[in-house]
Protein backbone atom coordinates (compact mmCIF):
# COMPACT_ATOMS: atom_id res chain seq x y z
CA UNK A 1 0.00 0.00 0.00
CA UNK A 2 1.53 3.35 -1.06
CA UNK A 3 1.00 6.56 0.99
CA UNK A 4 0.41 9.88 -0.86
CA UNK A 5 2.41 12.42 1.09
CA UNK A 6 4.13 14.54 -1.52
CA UNK A 7 2.34 14.58 -4.86
CA UNK A 8 -1.43 14.19 -5.23
CA UNK A 9 -2.62 11.41 -7.51
CA UNK A 10 -5.24 13.45 -9.27
CA UNK A 11 -4.86 16.88 -10.85
CA UNK A 12 -7.78 18.93 -12.16
CA UNK A 13 -7.97 19.09 -15.98
CA UNK A 14 -7.73 22.86 -16.03
CA UNK A 15 -5.62 24.94 -13.69
CA UNK A 16 -7.63 26.37 -10.85
CA UNK A 17 -7.31 30.09 -10.69
CA UNK A 18 -6.35 31.06 -7.23
CA UNK A 19 -6.64 34.71 -6.24
CA UNK A 20 -3.31 36.26 -5.38
CA UNK A 21 -2.76 37.45 -1.88
CA UNK A 22 -3.82 41.07 -1.79
CA UNK A 23 -1.00 43.37 -0.83
CA UNK A 24 -2.57 45.76 1.63
CA UNK A 25 -1.06 49.25 1.52
CA UNK A 26 -1.67 50.96 4.79
CA UNK A 27 -1.48 54.76 4.77
CA UNK A 28 -0.36 55.53 8.25
CA UNK A 29 1.65 58.72 8.24
CA UNK A 30 0.46 62.07 6.87
CA UNK A 31 2.65 63.73 4.28
CA UNK A 32 5.42 65.72 5.86
CA UNK A 33 5.16 69.33 4.73
CA UNK A 34 8.44 71.21 4.54
CA UNK A 35 9.02 73.32 7.65
CA UNK A 36 9.54 76.40 5.47
CA UNK A 37 5.93 76.17 4.22
CA UNK A 38 3.41 77.44 6.76
CA UNK A 39 -0.01 79.05 6.33
CA UNK A 40 0.67 82.51 4.98
CA UNK A 41 3.97 81.75 3.28
CA UNK A 42 4.44 83.32 -0.14
CA UNK A 43 5.38 80.48 -2.40
CA UNK A 44 6.74 80.38 -5.99
CA UNK A 45 5.04 77.83 -8.27
CA UNK A 46 7.58 76.22 -10.58
CA UNK A 47 5.52 74.01 -12.88
CA UNK A 48 2.11 73.76 -14.40
CA UNK A 49 -0.19 76.40 -15.75
CA UNK A 50 0.86 79.00 -13.20
CA UNK A 51 4.58 78.48 -13.27
CA UNK A 52 6.51 81.52 -12.08
CA UNK A 53 3.62 82.90 -10.09
CA UNK A 54 4.11 84.05 -6.52
CA UNK A 55 1.19 82.88 -4.51
CA UNK A 56 -0.04 82.70 -0.90
CA UNK A 57 -0.18 79.29 0.76
CA UNK A 58 -3.31 78.99 2.88
CA UNK A 59 -3.06 75.54 4.41
CA UNK A 60 -2.02 71.97 3.78
CA UNK A 61 -4.73 69.45 2.90
CA UNK A 62 -5.08 65.86 4.06
CA UNK A 63 -3.84 64.53 0.74
CA UNK A 64 -0.54 66.30 1.35
CA UNK A 65 -1.18 69.04 -1.21
CA UNK A 66 -1.05 72.71 -0.41
CA UNK A 67 -4.10 74.95 -0.73
CA UNK A 68 -3.05 78.10 -2.47
CA UNK A 69 -4.66 81.35 -3.65
CA UNK A 70 -3.17 84.13 -5.85
CA UNK A 71 -5.10 86.12 -4.68
CA UNK A 72 -7.01 85.81 -7.93
CA UNK A 73 -7.35 89.56 -8.33
CA UNK A 74 -3.61 90.10 -8.14
CA UNK A 75 -2.16 87.38 -10.32
CA UNK A 76 -4.98 85.23 -11.67
CA UNK A 77 -4.29 82.16 -9.55
CA UNK A 78 -7.55 80.88 -8.02
CA UNK A 79 -8.05 78.67 -4.99
CA UNK A 80 -6.04 75.71 -6.09
CA UNK A 81 -4.15 72.70 -4.88
CA UNK A 82 -0.44 72.45 -5.56
CA UNK A 83 2.15 69.88 -4.61
CA UNK A 84 4.89 71.16 -2.34
CA UNK A 85 7.44 69.46 -4.58
CA UNK A 86 6.82 71.98 -7.36
CA UNK A 87 7.16 74.97 -5.11
CA UNK A 88 9.86 77.21 -3.68
CA UNK A 89 8.96 78.56 -0.27
CA UNK A 90 10.08 82.17 0.27
CA UNK A 91 10.73 83.72 3.62
CA UNK A 92 7.94 86.26 3.09
CA UNK A 93 4.88 85.62 5.24
CA UNK A 94 1.38 87.04 4.98
CA UNK A 95 -1.02 87.10 7.90
CA UNK A 96 -3.81 84.65 7.05
CA UNK A 97 -5.35 84.36 10.50
CA UNK A 98 -8.39 86.27 9.27
CA UNK A 99 -9.02 83.92 6.37
CA UNK A 100 -11.47 81.06 6.93
CA UNK A 101 -10.25 78.02 5.01
CA UNK A 102 -11.87 75.30 7.14
CA UNK A 103 -14.45 74.47 4.48
CA UNK A 104 -11.86 73.62 1.81
CA UNK A 105 -10.67 70.06 1.61
CA UNK A 106 -9.78 67.54 -1.10
CA UNK A 107 -13.44 66.68 -1.75
CA UNK A 108 -14.06 70.32 -2.69
CA UNK A 109 -11.55 70.01 -5.53
CA UNK A 110 -12.51 66.54 -6.72
CA UNK A 111 -13.65 66.31 -10.35
CA UNK A 112 -17.35 65.70 -10.96
CA UNK A 113 -18.23 62.18 -12.14
CA UNK A 114 -20.82 63.11 -14.78
CA UNK A 115 -18.34 64.10 -17.47
CA UNK A 116 -17.74 60.63 -18.94
CA UNK A 117 -18.61 60.24 -22.58
CA UNK A 118 -18.78 57.11 -24.64
CA UNK A 119 -15.68 56.38 -26.73
CA UNK A 120 -17.49 56.88 -29.99
CA UNK A 121 -19.03 60.12 -28.88
CA UNK A 122 -15.65 61.43 -27.90
CA UNK A 123 -14.18 60.43 -31.24
CA UNK A 124 -16.81 62.33 -33.19
CA UNK A 125 -16.80 65.33 -30.88
CA UNK A 126 -15.32 68.71 -31.85
CA UNK A 127 -11.64 69.31 -31.47
CA UNK A 128 -12.24 72.87 -30.31
CA UNK A 129 -11.27 73.27 -26.68
CA UNK A 130 -14.26 73.81 -24.48
CA UNK A 131 -14.00 76.90 -22.27
CA UNK A 132 -13.62 76.07 -18.62
CA UNK A 133 -16.79 76.61 -16.68
CA UNK A 134 -16.17 77.96 -13.20
CA UNK A 135 -18.99 77.24 -10.82
CA UNK A 136 -20.61 80.11 -8.99
CA UNK A 137 -19.75 78.50 -5.72
CA UNK A 138 -16.05 78.64 -6.54
CA UNK A 139 -16.33 82.28 -7.52
CA UNK A 140 -18.11 83.08 -4.29
CA UNK A 141 -15.57 81.24 -2.16
CA UNK A 142 -12.75 82.91 -4.06
CA UNK A 143 -14.18 86.34 -3.33
CA UNK A 144 -14.57 85.62 0.37
CA UNK A 145 -11.01 84.35 0.75
CA UNK A 146 -9.47 87.07 -1.39
CA UNK A 147 -11.22 89.93 0.37
CA UNK A 148 -9.70 88.82 3.65
CA UNK A 149 -6.29 88.30 2.03
CA UNK A 150 -6.21 91.59 0.15
CA UNK A 151 -6.71 93.51 3.36
CA UNK A 152 -3.56 92.14 4.93
CA UNK A 153 -1.59 92.27 1.67
CA UNK A 154 -2.32 95.92 0.97
CA UNK A 155 -1.08 96.74 4.46
CA UNK A 156 2.46 95.68 3.51
CA UNK A 157 4.40 98.03 1.26
CA UNK A 158 5.02 96.71 -2.28
CA UNK A 159 3.63 93.26 -1.49
CA UNK A 160 0.84 93.54 -4.06
CA UNK A 161 3.28 94.35 -6.84
CA UNK A 162 5.51 91.53 -5.66
CA UNK A 163 2.69 88.98 -5.93
CA UNK A 164 1.68 90.34 -9.32
CA UNK A 165 5.18 89.93 -10.71
CA UNK A 166 6.42 86.59 -12.01
CA UNK A 167 9.59 84.92 -10.83
CA UNK A 168 12.24 84.59 -13.51
CA UNK A 169 15.87 83.54 -13.64
CA UNK A 170 18.35 85.71 -15.45
CA UNK A 171 21.65 84.56 -16.84
CA UNK A 172 23.62 85.84 -13.86
CA UNK A 173 21.36 84.28 -11.24
CA UNK A 174 22.67 81.26 -9.37
CA UNK A 175 19.67 79.56 -7.72
CA UNK A 176 21.84 77.45 -5.43
CA UNK A 177 23.30 80.64 -3.96
CA UNK A 178 20.06 82.60 -3.81
CA UNK A 179 18.16 83.02 -0.60
CA UNK A 180 14.41 82.94 -0.95
Amino acid sequence: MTTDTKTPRYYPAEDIKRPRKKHVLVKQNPTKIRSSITPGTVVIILAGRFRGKRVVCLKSLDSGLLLVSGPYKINGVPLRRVNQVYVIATSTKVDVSGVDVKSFDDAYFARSKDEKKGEEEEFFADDTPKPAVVSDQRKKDQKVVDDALLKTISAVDMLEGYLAASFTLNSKDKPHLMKF
Partner: protein
Amino acid sequence: MTFTRFMQVGRIVLINYGPEEGKLATVVDIVDQNKCLIDGPADITGVERQVISYTRIALTDFLIKIDKNAKSKDVEKVWEEEDISGKWEATSWAKKLASRKRRVSLSDFDRFKVMVAKKQKAAIIAKKMAA
Protein backbone atom coordinates in the same frame (compact mmCIF):
# COMPACT_ATOMS: atom_id res chain seq x y z
CA MET B 1 55.66 102.34 -7.41
CA THR B 2 56.95 101.35 -3.97
CA PHE B 3 55.31 99.19 -1.38
CA THR B 4 53.50 100.92 1.45
CA ARG B 5 51.91 98.08 3.44
CA PHE B 6 54.51 95.94 5.17
CA MET B 7 54.19 92.77 7.16
CA GLN B 8 55.25 94.10 10.55
CA VAL B 9 54.29 93.95 14.19
CA GLY B 10 51.19 96.04 14.63
CA ARG B 11 49.88 95.67 11.06
CA ILE B 12 46.11 95.18 10.92
CA VAL B 13 45.21 92.33 8.59
CA LEU B 14 41.99 90.95 7.13
CA ILE B 15 41.62 87.17 7.20
CA ASN B 16 40.50 85.88 3.80
CA TYR B 17 40.29 82.17 4.29
CA GLY B 18 39.43 79.68 6.96
CA PRO B 19 37.04 79.70 9.88
CA GLU B 20 37.87 83.30 10.77
CA GLU B 21 37.18 84.56 7.27
CA GLY B 22 36.20 88.21 7.04
CA LYS B 23 37.56 89.22 10.45
CA LEU B 24 40.29 91.70 11.31
CA ALA B 25 43.37 90.82 13.35
CA THR B 26 46.67 92.39 14.46
CA VAL B 27 50.08 90.99 13.66
CA VAL B 28 51.82 90.44 16.97
CA ASP B 29 54.95 88.57 15.90
CA ILE B 30 56.54 87.19 12.76
CA VAL B 31 57.31 83.47 12.76
CA ASP B 32 59.13 83.08 9.44
CA GLN B 33 58.72 84.02 5.76
CA ASN B 34 55.44 82.17 5.49
CA LYS B 35 53.55 82.75 8.70
CA CYS B 36 52.98 85.15 11.53
CA LEU B 37 51.34 85.27 14.92
CA ILE B 38 48.10 87.22 15.00
CA ASP B 39 45.73 88.30 17.74
CA GLY B 40 42.25 89.73 17.32
CA PRO B 41 42.24 91.08 19.97
CA ALA B 42 39.86 88.27 20.81
CA ASP B 43 37.43 90.48 22.74
CA ILE B 44 37.02 92.91 19.86
CA THR B 45 37.21 90.93 16.65
CA GLY B 46 36.72 87.37 17.92
CA VAL B 47 40.03 86.09 16.54
CA GLU B 48 42.04 84.12 19.08
CA ARG B 49 45.81 84.37 19.21
CA GLN B 50 47.12 82.00 16.59
CA VAL B 51 49.73 81.39 13.91
CA ILE B 52 48.43 82.01 10.43
CA SER B 53 49.92 81.69 6.98
CA TYR B 54 50.39 84.78 4.82
CA THR B 55 48.33 83.14 2.09
CA ARG B 56 45.30 83.45 4.32
CA ILE B 57 45.53 87.13 5.11
CA ALA B 58 45.49 90.49 3.37
CA LEU B 59 47.30 93.56 4.68
CA THR B 60 45.33 96.71 5.38
CA ASP B 61 46.53 100.30 5.59
CA PHE B 62 46.22 100.41 9.35
CA LEU B 63 49.14 100.10 11.70
CA ILE B 64 49.17 100.33 15.48
CA LYS B 65 52.06 100.80 17.81
CA ILE B 66 52.48 97.68 19.89
CA ASP B 67 55.49 95.80 21.19
CA LYS B 68 56.48 92.46 19.75
CA ASN B 69 54.53 89.71 21.50
CA ALA B 70 52.37 92.22 23.28
CA LYS B 71 49.71 90.84 25.56
CA SER B 72 46.15 90.70 24.23
CA LYS B 73 45.08 93.31 26.77
CA ASP B 74 47.73 95.75 25.57
CA VAL B 75 46.77 95.24 21.93
CA GLU B 76 43.16 95.84 22.92
CA LYS B 77 44.04 99.09 24.63
CA VAL B 78 45.84 100.50 21.62
CA TRP B 79 43.13 99.24 19.27
CA GLU B 80 40.46 101.05 21.28
CA GLU B 81 42.51 104.25 21.41
CA GLU B 82 43.00 104.28 17.65
CA ASP B 83 39.41 103.14 17.05
CA ILE B 84 40.54 100.78 14.32
CA SER B 85 37.11 99.16 14.11
CA GLY B 86 35.50 102.49 13.33
CA LYS B 87 38.17 103.47 10.84
CA TRP B 88 37.91 100.12 9.11
CA GLU B 89 34.12 100.37 8.74
CA ALA B 90 34.59 103.74 7.05
CA THR B 91 36.89 102.41 4.35
CA SER B 92 35.44 101.60 0.94
CA TRP B 93 37.03 98.14 1.20
CA ALA B 94 34.91 97.32 4.24
CA LYS B 95 31.84 98.87 2.66
CA LYS B 96 32.26 96.77 -0.46
CA LEU B 97 32.55 93.60 1.61
CA ALA B 98 29.44 94.55 3.56
CA SER B 99 27.41 95.28 0.43
CA ARG B 100 28.48 91.98 -1.12
CA LYS B 101 27.36 90.17 2.03
CA ARG B 102 24.05 92.03 2.01
CA ARG B 103 23.43 91.20 -1.66
CA VAL B 104 23.85 87.49 -1.03
CA SER B 105 21.47 87.50 1.91
CA LEU B 106 18.59 89.24 0.11
CA SER B 107 15.28 87.41 0.10
CA ASP B 108 13.11 87.09 -3.02
CA PHE B 109 10.94 89.98 -1.82
CA ASP B 110 14.06 92.11 -1.21
CA ARG B 111 15.30 91.39 -4.70
CA PHE B 112 11.97 92.55 -6.08
CA LYS B 113 12.22 95.81 -4.11
CA VAL B 114 15.75 96.35 -5.43
CA MET B 115 14.52 95.82 -8.97
CA VAL B 116 11.76 98.40 -8.53
CA ALA B 117 14.18 100.89 -6.96
CA LYS B 118 16.61 100.49 -9.86
CA LYS B 119 13.83 101.13 -12.35
CA GLN B 120 12.73 104.25 -10.48
CA LYS B 121 16.30 105.53 -10.40
CA ALA B 122 16.71 104.89 -14.12
CA ALA B 123 13.46 106.72 -14.82
CA ILE B 124 14.61 109.77 -12.88
CA ILE B 125 17.94 109.78 -14.69
CA ALA B 126 16.31 109.36 -18.09
CA LYS B 127 14.01 112.25 -17.33
CA LYS B 128 16.92 114.48 -16.37
CA MET B 129 18.87 113.50 -19.48
CA ALA B 130 15.94 114.18 -21.76
CA ALA B 131 15.43 117.66 -20.30
